[in-house]
């Protein structure tokens, strides 16, 4: 591990992209335009489920101002019987999500797209496309979709030998749960439901594509320029070497921008018309046809002995995939019990399709759903045992050496530390009034490493230019600048950090899985170390001594001790000025499939007050305790914790999709889909606990996703504590709260 003097790592520097973002200069995808640019618009399905009998585009094509029309026949066909995987995405489903092929599977499913001289003409022309549908019965909710007589979405899917909407199953087993429950003094089993919720990024999806001489350039709002390149290549047949995907500044993603929607469509339209094509979704389109994350139906059973030792846990999690397979059952089934050392675990996930938009990742995909059920049951177990809920968690907490049901044996982890910090925190001792309650919950997320590339160059004037390959959504450039400045021993302001496009930096995996700082810090550190080695070699050359006799200290090359000789130190500027004479430009790059991103843990404490007249639940106090490994830039780590808590509060209290009887989303706007606004929330305290990850040069653990794992249960347990009544379904919105109170 590097010796770090901590001048920059851990300091709250001003982010390199900050001034652009507070002045309105920062360029997001929809802010970009090109000469000769025209506009694309998508025609979407008016039905929740229908066979496409025919599509006639001739009237639209003849409409004045229309330049091209595309349908599924213009994109590469991926036959239904053969899986083509790209990461965790199956291109069979991705292609059909981008443009419907055999059937439309949800209201808002793209059917065709038009490019025209203006957005208005394109929208008019969409109405002239004649689609003949054979409307089919639809199904929205899981409980309906898994009934034996449910309308079947895909006749190629079967489960246990019968046509089914269950698209997949995943199981984790450890020990013997039956034997475990037999030993338990207290066994509690409960059923839970959660609703699908949208990632809710404020920037709608957007893409601008130009295709010249068969070479495409794509500016889009995405969490991964390399993912955009790969998927667009697969769907359009254009080789990756002829696609340059540029990561625009991105206005939020939370996982929802880890797949493509508009990019291949705009690419084909641009190719057909020979003009740059811009497409921007409306909020209505975002709500109907992108994301969300799954709704769920789960059953969790936990058994414990009198002394508070959990002896068995069983969970069954049905998750909505939306119209095409692929819900995050791994997150639900894998993370639900992972925070605890439980000898007997059986956790099963089912992937269920129904006539909703295809789910996309949302911060720790699946894990909040699993944790909600498990942590609510734990609360009841604590109650039954007469134990403090944090003491129960502490007693059973996973530690170094604990074997998790999903496979790994945990290395050094800071879970216990988060619980102890919560117990000791003043929040946990604050007195509560009438109709007020306190809830706690913990959570785990896997975290990811994966492919990452970096290039660190010394400029001729002795400053530093770093390029990495993961789009920066929440301050990762600032963290990379902190690390580079630290390693080189120079002022933070002398480091500039850029996110490269697919042509200027090596392959780097998505901004997702809480990987960005973990992975990019690793390759940036190695690159910088190579640069430092070169700097020492150059100094040695100038001094005509052995390179081994030079050390790099405080931003300067110095002779290593008396024997090396007496020379005045050489700064970065000095060495850069002589770079050409001493061997050429100075820089280094590293590309790697990074390993060792260990899991993350958090414990949250939430206080609420319930208004029994209005059914409103107000969060009074909220404190998150998280093992963050090392907070390279504390403000942005806190920001992740606070943002996750706020999203979790929304999930717990107000957010949900409402469908009408025709299977159409009834609340596809910010006004009606109620995300927390500023006046809904209190300050969100973030307590960072640093248990460095031994497998990372700076000790970094992913921090972005764990914050969304505990809040659902923390809020639910707080409401239960306030009312003495439990909810087993989210959101706990005013009408639901009143229903439960009236049922008293």
């Amino acid at each position: 591990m590097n010796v770090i003097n901590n001048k920059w790592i851990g300091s709250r520097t001003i982010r390199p992209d900050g001034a652009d973002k507070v002045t309105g200069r920062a360029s997001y995808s929809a802010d970009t335009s090109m000469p000769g640019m025209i506009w694309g618009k998508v025609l979407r399905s008016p039905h929740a489920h229908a066979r496409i009998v025919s599509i006639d585009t001739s009237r639209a094509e003849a409409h004045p101002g229309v330049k091209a029309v595309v349908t599924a026949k213009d994109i590469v066909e991926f036959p239904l019987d053969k899986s083509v995987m790209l990461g965790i995405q199956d291109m069979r489903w991705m292609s059909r999500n981008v443009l419907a092929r055999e059937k439309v599977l949800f209201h808002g499913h793209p059917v065709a797209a038009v490019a025209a001289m203006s957005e208005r003409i394109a929208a008019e022309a969409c109405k002239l496309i004649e689609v003949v549908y054979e409307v089919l019965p639809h199904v929205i909710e899981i409980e309906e979709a898994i009934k034996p007589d449910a309308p079947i979405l895909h006749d190629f899917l079967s489960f246990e030998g019968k046509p089914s909407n269950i698209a997949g199953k995943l199981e984790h087993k450890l020990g013997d749960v039956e034997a475990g429950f037999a030993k338990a003094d207290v066994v509690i089993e409960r059923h839970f439901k959660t609703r699908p919720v949208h990632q809710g990024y404020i920037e709608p999806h957007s893409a601008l594509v130009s295709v010249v001489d068969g070479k495409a350039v794509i500016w889009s709002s995405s969490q991964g320029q390399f993912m955009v390149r790969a998927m667009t290549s697969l769907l359009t047949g254009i080789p990756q070497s002829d696609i340059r995907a540029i990561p625009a500044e991105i206005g939020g993603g939370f996982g929802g921008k880890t797949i493509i929607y508009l990019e291949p469509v705009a690419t084909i339209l641009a190719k057909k018309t020979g003009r740059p094509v811009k497409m921007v979704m409306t909020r209505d389109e975002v709500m109907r046809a992108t994301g969300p994350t799954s709704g769920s139906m789960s059953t969790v059973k936990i058994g414990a002995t009198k002394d508070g030792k959990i002896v068995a846990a069983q969970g069954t999690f049905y998750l909505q995939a939306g119209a095409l397979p692929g819900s995050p059952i791994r997150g639900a089934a894998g993370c639900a019990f992972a925070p605890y050392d439980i000898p007997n675990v059986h956790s099963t996930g089912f992937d269920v399709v129904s006539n909703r938009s295809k789910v996309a990742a949302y911060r720790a995909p699946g894990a909040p759903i699993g944790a909600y059920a498990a942590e609510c049951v734990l609360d009841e177990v604590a109650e039954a045992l007469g134990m403090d809920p944090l003491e129960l968690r502490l007693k059973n907490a996973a530690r170094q050496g604990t074997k998790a049901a999903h496979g790994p044996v945990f290395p050094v982890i800071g879970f216990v530390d988060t619980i102890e910090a919560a117990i000791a925190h003043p929040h946990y001792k604050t007195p509560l009034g009438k109709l007020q309650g306190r809830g706690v919950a913990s959570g785990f997320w896997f975290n990811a490493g994966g492919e990452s590339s970096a290039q660190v160059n010394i400029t001729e004037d002795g400053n530093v230019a770093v390029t990495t390959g993961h789009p920066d959504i929440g301050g990762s450039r600032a963290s990379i600048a902190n690390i580079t400045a630290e390693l080189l021993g120079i002022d933070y302001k002398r480091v500039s950090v850029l996110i490269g496009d697919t042509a200027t930096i090596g392959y780097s995996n998505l901004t997702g899985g809480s990987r960005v700082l973990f992975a990019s810090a690793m390759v940036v550190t190695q690159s910088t170390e190579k640069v430092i080695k070169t700097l020492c070699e150059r100094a040695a050359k100038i001094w005509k001594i052995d390179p081994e006799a030079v050390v790099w200290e405080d931003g300067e090359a110095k002779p290593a001790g008396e024997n090396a000789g007496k020379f005045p130190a050489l700064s970065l500027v000095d060495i850069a000025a002589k770079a050409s004479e001493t061997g050429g430009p100075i820089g280094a790059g590293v590309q790697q499939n990074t390993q060792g991103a260990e899991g993350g843990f958090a414990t949250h404490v939430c206080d609420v007050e319930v208004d029994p007249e209005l059914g409103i639940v107000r969060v009074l106090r909220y404190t998150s305790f998280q093992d963050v490994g090392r907070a390279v830039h504390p403000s942005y780590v806190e920001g992740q914790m606070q943002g996750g808590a706020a999203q979790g509060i929304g999930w717990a209290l107000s957010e949900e999709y409402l469908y009408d009887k025709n299977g159409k989303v009834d609340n596809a706007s910010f006004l009606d889909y109620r995300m927390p606004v500023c006046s809904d929330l209190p300050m969100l305290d973030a307590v960072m606990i640093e248990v460095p990850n031994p497998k990372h040069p700076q000790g970094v653990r992913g921090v972005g996703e764990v914050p969304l794992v505990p809040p659902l249960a923390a809020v639910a347990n707080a409401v239960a504590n306030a009312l003495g009544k439990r909810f087993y379904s989210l959101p706990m919105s005013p009408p639901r709260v009143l229903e439960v109170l009236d049922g008293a």
Partner: protein
Amino acid sequence: MAKMHVATTINGEPEEFLCEPHDSMLDLLRGALGLTGAKEGCGTGDCGACSIMLDGRLVCSCLMLAPEAEGRKIDTIEGMAQGETLHPLQQKFLEMAALQCGICTPGVLMASRALLERNPDPTETEVRFWLAGNLCRCTGYDKIVRAVLETAAEMRGAA
């Protein structure tokens, strides 16, 4: 239909443009006028990302028709800093990390400035209710509210 001619003042400078009667001010700003600092998060007045000032009043430019700009004064995020010198709110937002993705930031800053012009000493609750029309999905609002309160205190101290 013939385009309409509109003469207005934007960030203190005279400006003229042609528009369709149904164009929104946001479309004009982001399109013909090239001022892309105001963002479209919804187009329906629900997110505040498009916030601008019209004759000193905070409005959602997505809900304003472009022809309404005739003879009026418009201020956008592009006019908030004086050259290289950031407005105290902009500076404080950077220092306190009151933004993550930054898409809501221009609107939040415009709204916050409008608040402090009216009320130089707001309570936390007043800040929260004033900003209730500006959605931010990244920050949970904590650092935004703190930055506004802190700026207000500093500006009062300096005044």
